[in-house]
């Protein structure tokens, strides 16, 4: 699905990620690691928000950065920073307008995504008046409405309470799209196909959730 070839990222002369080479085909991939380990930078490489200093990120066959952005959606930790318009339906239309879709297609996609997550009642609500869980669902809907092939999420459940976290994860479980989830909540990754453990900008473990998470937990004992 997506391939990283000897990808490195440096910021202000400091190495953030170094020499990452891997190919991800699995439908559910988790990323774990300590704060400052490079997880978020790694996640931002998937859809071109972050550019590699060297190396290459490519979707299937060789693609340009624009293709990454078009086919890989990104959900941020804080939905307030992702929602651009004051009214829900306007915000969902934002990405579609950027794709130059017709008004009819835009409207149809908005209705479909709201229906899909049972959010139709929020269509004409002001975004700043929504609860944290509703905002995160709208942020997810704003990405899904663009019909990406893969969705990368950077700790999307951190600001949610238990109920909203479960609701959000149920929505994630039901997605057909490929999902890459950065999370400190290790329980969420139990059913994932593959988990990457990143430390000091490199992948130190890569495999099934049980093995990788156990190794990560062992490495963090004080």
């Amino acid at each position, binding site marked *: 699905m997506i391939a990283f070839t000897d990808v490195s990222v440096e910021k202000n002369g400091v190495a953030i990620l170094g020499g990452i080479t891997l190919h991800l085909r699995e439908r559910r991939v988790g990323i774990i690691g300590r704060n400052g380990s490079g997880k978020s930078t790694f996640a931002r490489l998937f859809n071109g928000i972050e550019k590699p200093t060297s190396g290459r990120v490519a979707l299937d066959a060789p693609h340009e950065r624009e293709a990454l*952005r078009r086919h890989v959606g990104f959900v941020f930790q804080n939905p307030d*920073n992702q929602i*651009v318009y004051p009214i829900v339906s306007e915000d969902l239309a934002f990405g579609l307008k950027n794709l130059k879709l017709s008004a009819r297609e835009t409207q149809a996609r908005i209705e479909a995504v709201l229906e899909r997550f049972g959010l139709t009642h929020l269509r*004409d609500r002001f975004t700043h008046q929504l609860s944290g869980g509703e905002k995160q669902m709208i942020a997810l809907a704003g990405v899904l409405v663009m019909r990406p092939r893969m969705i990368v999420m950077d700790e999307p459940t951190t600001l949610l309470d238990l109920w909203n976290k479960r609701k959000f994860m149920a929505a994630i479980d039901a997605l057909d799209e490929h999902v890459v989830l950065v999370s400190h909540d290790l329980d969420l990754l139990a059913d994932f196909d593959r988990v990457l453990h990143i430390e000091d900008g490199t992948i130190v473990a890569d495999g099934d959730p049980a093995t990788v998470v156990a190794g990560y937990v062992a490495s963090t004992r004080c």
Partner: protein
Amino acid sequence: MLTDLYVFADSPVHRARPVVKIAALVVLCTSLFVCEGWTAVTVAGVLVFTGFALAGLGPRHAIVSVRPALWILAAIFAVQLYMTDVVFAGFIVARFVVLILAAALVTLTTRTSEFVDGILSALRFAPAWVPKAQIALAVSLFLRFVPLVRTALDDVREAQRARGLDRNIKAILVPLVVRILKTADEVSQAIYARSFD
């Protein structure tokens, strides 16, 4: 709050093209300053109130729109009263009230996305070097992030109050500005991620 102003309805004013509403607002505001005197203010006032009625908006909406400016209007009235007389002071304040209500009529009946489309439409004949889409997006972001900045200010103030620093401007401004800059950074990433050029 600013972004709470839009009132969902299906009136002729709501349906009017945003560019027409913006143009009408510009013409009305300019006319009020070009045509001095109570007649102009009265005519403009009647037009604005007719617009309110057509849009199905009541006195409550008018009061909510003017209320945030009451202190400034009071200050203007006081200064004019000191410098001129009560009639002229009243005229200046009445003119400002009509201007505020006219602007409110546009925001009460125009969604942000329509407003942005209106700006884009108005900028259609601008030179190629004018960043039209960016200007329109900046307007929508301004409207969207007013409540967000206000929430951030409340959070910072509360945190500093817990440390006994709620009267220290520096202790409030520095973390607020840092937070806004970090937010701006992530917002720009989010906009990029949603295919905006």
